[in-house]
């Protein structure tokens, strides 16, 4: 049937096309031609279904919400209480801790201990210790598992985020969300499977590069799509001025129809993907505005989050995260920029916690009330922690710290009300049940039914994994 000329279709081709579409041109109106069954079939492939051998086992969670507190919140003012730190307040930091260690801004400066800049108290039946900056976290103490023994390998923001997202400090590797969508596919019909939301508020908001949600060497359709907090929620999601939705539909359908017609001649498998991509694009033009339209949310819900729709706040993003989760989005990544507290820590903790503490609780609670917490994994934390040592860029603060810090996990597959691991008496080194970022990744993958060791892609000759080549373990004791 195919001849070697790409250029002009013959009448035979045209007739074949029309008969396979089951409509005759003369009889049918264009619109009915365009919604023929075959085209509709083609359009349903807008999303991937994942790898055929995944999940490796039935995971407890279907999706992940990663709440990244960008800048690096202090573990010593959130979840890691060290009486000794207060005892030694103002004294020189013992060199046994710091000799030969990488230090960021405090390099070459005298190092002295900075006691806790807040109080801690026990919450819930579990009696987890949580600082006074985060009273709303106290209300969910029995739902979250606090890991107090995190370690990472990168001490500057940009590479540390890269490490947290991709398991390596080297650029060009896929981020967690891309891995998950590559492996498991997406369940969202009208939205991308990996969505990123950002908000700002606090000290010195550090830049976040878009490579943090890149797909690295995985196909680019797995990359995160950043939803904007102001203006159009997704780049180019709005019709051009002077074009109505029905006109846009007409345009998209004409492109799809002509592409499909052309494909009879050239039989290019790529065209099916293209038609599906246009379909998803058009659906997003409706689904994305629908997603951000909060008018259907009750007053109680809005108050619970403290969200004013469209304000780009962390609170609004938390509410959006729930709405994205409801719509089947696989990986939802929130960044709140403002946690880089080299100085003025008390002041800025008040700001950051004021903006994030309650909405985080609201998100968890809302999901719980809707029965979605059991299959949603929530992870909270920064790219690193902060030093037990004083830094004073405008009042007491702390420098970057990678040898020990805190994060928490909750929801699908995780035991609530558990404190896991510990740092030493000054909160410097993780010493008990140390959790490396790789272990966090392995545990996250486990929760969604993936064996991290067996989840690899060949790149530059190596079987590349999110967990890299070093040993990584699933943190069994915190699994429910």
């Amino acid at each position, binding site marked *: 049937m195919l001849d070697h000329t*790409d250029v002009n*279709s013959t009448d035979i081709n045209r007739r074949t096309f029309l008969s396979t579409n089951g409509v005759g041109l003369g009889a049918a109106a264009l619109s009915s031609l365009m919604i023929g069954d075959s085209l509709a079939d083609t359009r349903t492939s807008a999303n991937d279904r994942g790898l055929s051998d995944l999940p490796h086992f039935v995971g407890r969670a279907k999706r992940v919400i990663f709440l990244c507190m960008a800048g690096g919140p202090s573990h010593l003012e959130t979840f890691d209480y060290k009486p000794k730190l207060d005892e030694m307040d103002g004294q020189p930091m013992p060199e046994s801790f710091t000799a030969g260690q990488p230090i960021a801004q405090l390099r070459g400066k005298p190092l002295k201990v900075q006691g806790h800049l807040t109080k801690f108290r026990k919450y819930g039946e579990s009696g987890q210790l949580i600082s006074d900056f985060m009273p709303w976290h106290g209300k969910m103490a029995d739902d979250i598992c606090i890991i107090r023994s995190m370690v990472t390998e990168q001490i500057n923001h940009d590479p540390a985020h890269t490490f947290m997202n991709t398991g390596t400090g080297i650029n060009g590797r896929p981020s967690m969300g891309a891995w998950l969508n590559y492996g498991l596919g997406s369940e969202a019909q009208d939205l991308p499977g990996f969505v990123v939301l950002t908000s700002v508020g606090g000290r010195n908001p550090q830049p976040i590069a878009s490579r943090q949600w890149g797909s690295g060497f995985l196909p*680019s359709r797995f990359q995160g799509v950043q939803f904007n907090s102001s203006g159009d929620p997704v780049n180019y999601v709005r019709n*051009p001025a002077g074009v109505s939705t029905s*006109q846009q539909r007409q345009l998209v359908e004409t492109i799809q129809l002509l592409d499909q017609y052309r494909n009879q001649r050239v039989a290019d498998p790529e065209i099916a993907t293209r038609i599906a991509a246009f379909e998803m*694009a058009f659906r*997003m033009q409706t689904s994305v505005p629908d997603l951000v339209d909060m008018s259907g949310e009750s007053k109680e819900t809005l108050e619970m989050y403290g969200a004013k729709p469209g304000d780009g706040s962390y609170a609004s993003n938390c509410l959006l995260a729930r709405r994205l989760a409801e719509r089947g989005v696989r990986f939802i990544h929130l960044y709140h920029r403002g946690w880089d507290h080299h100085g003025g820590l008390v002041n800025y903790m008040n700001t950051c916690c004021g903006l994030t503490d309650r909405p985080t609780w609201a998100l968890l609670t809302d999901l719980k009330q809707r029965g979605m917490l059991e299959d949603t994994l929530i992870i909270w934390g920064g790219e690193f922690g902060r030093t037990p040592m004083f830094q004073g860029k405008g009042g007491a603060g702390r420098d970057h710290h990678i040898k020990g810090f805190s994060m928490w996990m909750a929801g699908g597959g995780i035991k609530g009300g558990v404190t896991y691991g510990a740092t030493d008496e000054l909160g410097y080194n993780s010493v008990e049940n140390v959790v490396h970022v790789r272990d966090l990744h392995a545990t996250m993958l486990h929760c969604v039914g993936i064996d991290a060791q067996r989840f690899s*892609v060949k790149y530059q000759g190596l079987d590349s994994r999110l967990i890299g080549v070093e040993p990584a373990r699933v943190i069994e004791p915190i699994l429910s």
Partner: protein
Amino acid sequence: VRLHHRHPNYRNTSAICCGLLLACVAVLVPAERVAAQVKTRDSARPVRFSTDIRPLLSDRCFQCHGPDEESREAELRLDIAPKAGRVVVPGNPADSEILRRITSDDPDEQMPPPGHGKPLTAAEVDLFRRWITGGGKWSAHWAYEKPVRHETPDVPVEGASNWIDRFIARRLAGEGLSASPAADRVTLIRRASFDLTGLPPTPKEVTAFVQDKSPDAWEKLIDRLLASETHGERMASFWLDLVRYADTVGYHGDQDHNISPYRDWVIDAFIENMPFDRFTAEQLAGDLLPDSSVDQKVASGYNRLLQTTHEGGLQPREYLAIYAADRIRNLSEVWMGATMGCCQCHSHKFDPYTLDDFYSMGAFFADLDETKHFTSGGNSLPTKREPELKVHSRRERLRIRELDRKIADARALVDKLADDDASKQKLATQVASLLKEREAVSMAARLTMISVAIKPRTTRVLPRGNWLDESGPVVRPAVPQFLGQLDAGDQRATRLGLARWLTDAEDGNGLLTSRVFANRFWYLMFGSGIARNLTDFGGQGEPPEYPELLDRLAIDFVDSGWDVRHMLKLIAMSRTYRQTSLLNPELLKRDIENHLFARQSRFRLPAESIRDNALSISGLLVQQVGGPSVKPYQPAGYYRHLNFPTRKYSQHDDSRQWRRGLYVHWQRQFLHPMMKAFDAPRREECTAQRPRSNTPLASLTLLNDPTFVEAARAFAERILRTEAATTDSERLDAAFMLAVSRKPDAFERSVLSRLLVASRKQYQGNEKAARDLISAGIAPTPYGIEVTEHAAWTVVARTLLGLGETTTRN
């Protein structure tokens, strides 16, 4: 469970079509991509160690039995022939230990061991059996053997052809396949225009070529395209991806830095067809050449293209280590087709590169003055990245010279015209305007980062890549040991020595470099390489399907005097290049990914060409070579995450809006969303082969990015002003011709015609909407065209710009 997904980058959105009629294909595509290998039927083909066995050994065995001593088990290495024992008994598979182990059921004996996760398939075991039967000889890895000049196979090829085709024909005959017929002329001129210039042909060019019945019509076309300035721009895009050219520093605050004159140098180098050995030397060591010229210094900006930072709290020593590693990764991927990045921490697991090699290569760059920016660099836009040089581009210098001559001539003439006041006045005006232009060009000088050699820093091997560890031995500049030596006498070897070694075909690595690039030229003309992996010619890359052809091309490149244009023309003149890209049922079954080149390829245009194509079709494209980067429309707030300083993007409100994609401001952390949607890389690392995705974000861009909406309304205006076309039908033909170089058939015409009529009706009822649509962008709204008519045609134009055919090279 065997879980070994091949690197999916190459073909990342293809659904495997199970029938030729899309209409009856269900396309629910699982994401899994197991690259479709060629299903060879050439069972008589001898099993080759280098391309059949070594890749298997590398993938399954080298991890424990490879070049890395640290991880070697049982003192057995299989990357070289074992010296003694019965690992392989030539001619006797049954007595060979290796075959016993790979076929064993005993978990204690079985290889690869049970937990390895990648067992050998029956077909692979059979390859081992046949290899041992055939003598079981080891040879060096194909990419480390110097290319050999293989004689042209004596096989018949139909029609106009060259020796390339005979290498292809021999293999295809062995496979029981034959080459595809030649493509039609319209397809051919579109293909060659996109491949060689990145732009579509104009309708006039198409007609001229289709009607040119002379026997050398094709050659004339290729020569014309290769001689165009647009060819230099197209080649520059390819090169800038390799060397990771960008307008910003990349890390942390991602501030702008000064480097655009380097980009212009690259464009000019391709326009001049600079020999590749010189092209290499000027970039790596332009500053070290005797009496180096301004252009050579600009070229040495190559060494400054890497990502840098001056983030507060950074440790200079750490970043010096990061920079050194970045340079080695880039140099080895660009020129050597090697992934030396692995050796930052340990000797390579699959290739003979060592930790010492890595740091010895790094020592070549230890003379670069680069600590200054840690202190002088700040959060300004652009930031300071000394050493920098303020330069005029070659073009600007030529223009200044020309203007000076004109001014002098005019003034001389004034002196002669002592009495003619009117003429004098005219000349004076002329001189004034020339002086004004000269002033403007003179002011256009730009800063650019260059290389300046200082006393070399001490370079140590960093154990496990740890920059805090100073216990490693000091190393001097040297090339990887297994590739030979760079003879510098008593002197310390330099970057210039390294550049010469890379292109020295006699005593250096020239032939190997040549093979890396011969493969990339093939990629430029076919969309994939003869060896599929363009940056990894090592044990874990994919061996070429046509090793003899690749060798021959490599030798030809050197013999031609490193003549890039010669290579592109050679490939363009082959029959293989001119084949149709249509899949026939046999190839669909046997070679869907086109490893054998029994047809041409079909793929979506690269990001820059998607833009350039739309601008060209619309008539908006501004063709001007070089200059500072340009800023097209961009969604508001796209840079809001940038800080130090916070960033405000100001689009260019003049003709810079319609320059080629090559010139778009390349913000590493937030690459322009249009470029990103079509897979342009951020240029943090070397990119030899871009992915080709097909995502909803790309569709949204084509539909709604103001650049494309503006192009559509300009395209509509162009159609309506075409004098030869006055009826709807004639206009549709003209529009189709502009977009895809052919006329629509009756069905296509009727579909578009209905869309036109419907749109016309819609806009007649809503003139405000019509006016909104035709006001997209900053181009002046036309005078004398009826608004609703213009809007209706804009809808047609948007459709045409959105078609797969418009954005596909085939």
